[in-house]
């Protein structure tokens, strides 16, 4: 018997009990819809992480001062001040594949006219913008003369610009940071939220020397030319891990650390940190896919259940078909096609539901979603396989009926 003919029989049989068919499909509809949503959300999260890595640069190393111990109390990384501008200069001099930029961080109140805003102040060098791949929306970066003279100039992030200036143009305006007047020479491009959810546009950049002497510094910090963190960008095409080891041994040598002793700084490869986060989002997607599989399984059992009912109800019809010449494979095919039709219609409805739900989630929760044809194909294939798998037993039961008993069935 041809597939088209079997399909017509199946559709006619399913149309007889429309409500029952629809309810049976519901499990598959929800299951397939869940698969679509999970894959869309999972792929969206993954795409976002990948985008962050691209934005941050997969070739970044972050050096932070090591922990210090004060009276037996061990403080965390970054509590010490073991890194200096001389370390930065040494890295730039000794390792040609690396571009190092220091940063000194603090918090301060900034004031313009009658508005004020608490934000993070970073003392940096012009290389910092290269390393972080930050661009300017307007204005210019620090000039070497300004760096050397600890000039009172600053670059402000988009959030600070909005909070202080509103619609006004911040360029060449004078803002006060801890009562010290600074001239705004540039506004940074919008970078949005970081992976951790912090606002990357809520900051002010000043020359590091200025930061140390005028804003954040203490007398001893000024003397030792210490820095808070060092960002190291590895040149394109160079293995980050190799440069990581070069930086580590250079700093150990400069800090006179004995072989076997712990580093007095912490060196992190940002690509690895990001990759770990990506892996965790993948685990989440897998977990959600498992939840979806359970609903598909339950939907499949529902189909098997209803097909068994259908076979029993139509025992006489099966007997008649056998009497007029249906072979085992004709009956098997008829009920298998019916089960698969049921699950495929459910699957297609599920795709519709899943796509709609994904779009709604994207709108309401503001999550990024990625709808791929592969995910749709996968979900429909799932539905098909479930139809075949759970339809086979009832269909075989029908095909194995004894025609005499089937015809006599009341």
């Amino acid at each position: 018997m041809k597939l088209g003919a079997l399909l017509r029989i199946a559709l006619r049989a399913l149309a007889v009990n429309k409500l029952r068919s629809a309810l049976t499909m519901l499990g598959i509809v929800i299951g397939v819809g869940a698969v679509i949503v999970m894959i869309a959300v999972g792929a969206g999260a993954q795409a976002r992480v990948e985008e962050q890595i691209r934005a941050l640069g997969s070739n970044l190393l972050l050096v932070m001062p090591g922990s210090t111990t004060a009276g037996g109390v061990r403080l965390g990384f970054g509590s010490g001040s073991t890194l200096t501008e001389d370390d930065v200069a040494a890295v730039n001099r000794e390792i040609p594949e690396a571009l190092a930029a220091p940063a000194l961080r603090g918090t301060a109140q900034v004031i313009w006219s009658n508005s004020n805003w608490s934000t993070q102040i970073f003392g940096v060098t012009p290389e910092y913008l290269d390393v972080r791949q930050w661009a300017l929306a307007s204005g210019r970066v620090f000039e070497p003369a300004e760096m050397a003279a600890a000039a009172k100039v600053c670059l402000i992030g988009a959030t600070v610009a909005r909070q202080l200036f509103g619609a006004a143009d911040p360029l060449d305006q004078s803002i006060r940071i801890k009562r010290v007047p600074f001239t705004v020479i540039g506004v940074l491009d919008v970078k949005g939220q970081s992976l951790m959810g912090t606002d990357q546009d809520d900051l002010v950049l000043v020359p590091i020397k200025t930061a140390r002497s005028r804003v954040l510094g203490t007398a001893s910090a000024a003397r030792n030319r210490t820095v808070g963190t060092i960002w190291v960008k590895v040149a394109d095409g160079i293995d980050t891990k190799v440069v990581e080891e070069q930086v580590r041994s250079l700093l150990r040598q400069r800090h006179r650390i004995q072989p076997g002793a712990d580093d007095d700084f912490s060196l992190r490869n940002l690509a690895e940190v990001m990759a770990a986060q990506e892996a965790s989002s993948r685990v989440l997607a897998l977990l959600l896919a498992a939840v979806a599989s359970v609903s598909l399984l339950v939907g499949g059992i529902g189909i098997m259940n209803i097909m068994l009912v259908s076979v029993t109800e139509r025992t006489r019809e099966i007997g008649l078909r056998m009497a007029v010449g249906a072979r085992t494979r004709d009956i098997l095919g008829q009920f298998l096609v019916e089960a698969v039709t049921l699950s495929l219609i459910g699957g297609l409805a599920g795709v519709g539901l899943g796509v709609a739900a994904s779009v709604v989630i994207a709108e309401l929760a503001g999550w990024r979603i990625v709808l791929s044809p592969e995910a749709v194909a996968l979900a429909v294939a799932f539905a098909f396989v479930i139809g075949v798998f759970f339809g086979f037993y009832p269909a075989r039961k029908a095909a194995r009926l004894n025609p005499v008993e089937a015809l006599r069935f009341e």
Partner: protein
Amino acid sequence: MLIHTRELVKVYRMGDSEIRALDRVSVDIDKGEFVAVMGPSGSGKSTFMNVLGCLDRPTSGEYALEGRKISQLAGDQLAGVRNRSIGFVFQQFNLLPRTPALENVELPLVYAGLAKKQRQEKAKAMLERVGLGERAHHHPAQLSGGQQQRVAIARALVTEPLLILADEPTGALDSRTSLEIMALLQELNRQGMTVVLVTHEPDIARFARRMLAFRDGRVVQDET
């Protein structure tokens, strides 16, 4: 010789006891005969019909249909014999519900693998032959009992079988309609069709030209 049976035995097992539904039945039926099979319930007449109709296999003995030994065929081969050589008419008509008369008549041709156009032509011609050409697109629910049985007869005839097996064909009909259906079967027989009829009503059996009476699995009477 169309039907040739020798020493047909059919044994059913019911728990511990054995039931001999057929006990060494040897019957020959020629082409063109009109045979009524009679007997009380449990006499073995239905089992005999099921064996003749290739719906059931005998436990032992021999059954040949137009010289072909049926007792040795496998399930799907039996389905082929039923499809090509036997037309069934049942007491409850057994039409597919919510399916037009024409498609019901087409059904055996679907399993024979005929193309749609040929199926429809043959089914249409057969419906006209039983006097229902006008009702081809009616569903069973829209037809009277007699009309439904006519559709079933058209379905039995559509593959041009060797014989028609009618199992209590008038059991669900009133007496006037019963006579019409029997007249139709008689007419078909006059045109050369072999008809084997199972009934327990003597009035119906009178339409046949030969009568086989069963009791306790055996043929106890065979008269023309």
